[in-house]
């Protein structure tokens, strides 16, 4: 049953992505000021939204793990962080690419982009921490702690970078008013959401299997210890 839903979601995601691409590249009108370059927003913005959603899921799972020591929460936290970093990296890269033809620079210190980049490094650190701790229980506890600390920082980073930039001329992105544009944006956002759900679900299954391999099963407790004397004839 879960299998069926999974494949259904994949199918829907592919379908929505395909149509979303057409909508973004063909159907939506070009932006008044920036022209066709603006179309990258339809991929950039949903990417960043998904990244934020993913790290929020990671935050929830981390709290859940600290309270209940539930391995599913830990596996889901790992999956959410990895997929979040993926979407974040895509989002930041697209943002950078958008800046190049618009203002001729590879990096604008736009508050949102800057905050996203900082968050990216933050969660890359989280993933590194997971890699560098062998014991599964400690890994789960410590990464939950790191995740909570990192997540609480997100709004603080956002405000501080905004204040930092507001003292200078800020090239803000133009507001999308055209209802057609809003529709395409929302369509693509949902498409990206479906893709993210598929990614997180798959990654979650992998993480869960990995946990099972790492942790001695309770069934092993019932087995008798192996005899210490070698079986007859074993030394021949």
């Amino acid at each position, binding site marked *: 049953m879960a299998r069926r839903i999974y494949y259904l979601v994949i199918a829907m995601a592919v379908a929505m992505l395909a149509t979303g691409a057409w909508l973004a590249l063909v159907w939506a009108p070009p932006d008044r000021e920036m022209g066709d370059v603006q179309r990258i927003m339809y991929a950039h913005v949903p990417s960043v939204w998904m990244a934020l959603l993913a790290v929020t899921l990671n935050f929830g799972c981390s709290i859940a793990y600290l309270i209940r020591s539930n391995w599913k929460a830990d596996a889901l936290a790992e999956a959410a962080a990895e997929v979040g970093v993926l979407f974040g990296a895509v989002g930041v890269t697209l943002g950078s690419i958008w800046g190049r033809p618009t203002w001729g620079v590879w990096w604008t210190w736009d508050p949102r982009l800057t905050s996203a980049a900082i968050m990216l490094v933050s969660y890359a650190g989280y993933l590194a921490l997971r890699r560098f701790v062998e*014991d599964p229980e400690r890994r789960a506890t410590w990464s939950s702690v790191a995740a909570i600390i990192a997540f609480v920082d997100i709004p603080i980073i956002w405000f501080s970078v905004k204040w930092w930039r507001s003292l200078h001329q800020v090239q803000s992105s133009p507001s999308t008013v055209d209802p057609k544009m809003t529709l395409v944006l929302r369509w693509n956002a949902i498409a990206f959401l479906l893709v993210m759900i598929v990614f997180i679900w798959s990654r979650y299954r992998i993480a869960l299997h990995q946990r099972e391999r*790492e942790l*001695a099963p309770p069934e*092993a407790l019932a087995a008798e*210890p*192996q005899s210490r004397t070698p079986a007859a004839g074993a030394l021949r």
Partner: protein
Amino acid sequence: MGRLPRESYALEAQDVSRRYGRRWALARVSFRLAAGGSLLLTGPNGSGKTTLLRTLATAIPPTSGTVRVLGWDRVANRAEIRRSVALLSHSSFLYEDLSAEQNLLLLARLLGIPSPKEAVGSLLSRLGLGHRSAHPVRQFSSGMRKRVSIARLLLKAPKVALLDEPFGALDPGGIAQMEQIVTELQRSGTTVVLATHLVDQGQALCKERLHLVEGRVAAA
């Protein structure tokens, strides 16, 4: 707050299991030790003796099973258990750059012992460390470090003493002194669990025995 059950056991382990990754270091260990009793803990290397002692000391939680120390539940009354239990471990718990006296004073102050300096001073001379008390522990031999660790345990005046290989790194004189200390602890009513490879010394000191093989209770 935990209340003592009618039979007052100092230590109770019920189906205690502890896993490290793929390995069960302890597998369904159960035993009971009455207050004032003495238990010899034996078993080959890697059989779980240290893990069991650390679990009883509440340094680590069991993965499953229950532990009660002096009638207290290890989850609800961890602080009370720790106040009454002292662990003599492979690790000395000492700060290398502080002197023996400073290490002990730290413990004394945290315990709230009145007139800490006198208490620490007399303990150090009793264990033959008075003359080196100002030198950083970093300069101590392993035998002397063991003696400082013992001083830490005695300073706490615990109701339960968990000794993990207390004879390690001691010369014959040190071993004799350690045996004397264990005997005195027992005489003062302290419950003692002694893990050691020196089975003869252990059996002379302890009335009961628990043998572990691969994390399980086994016949000796």
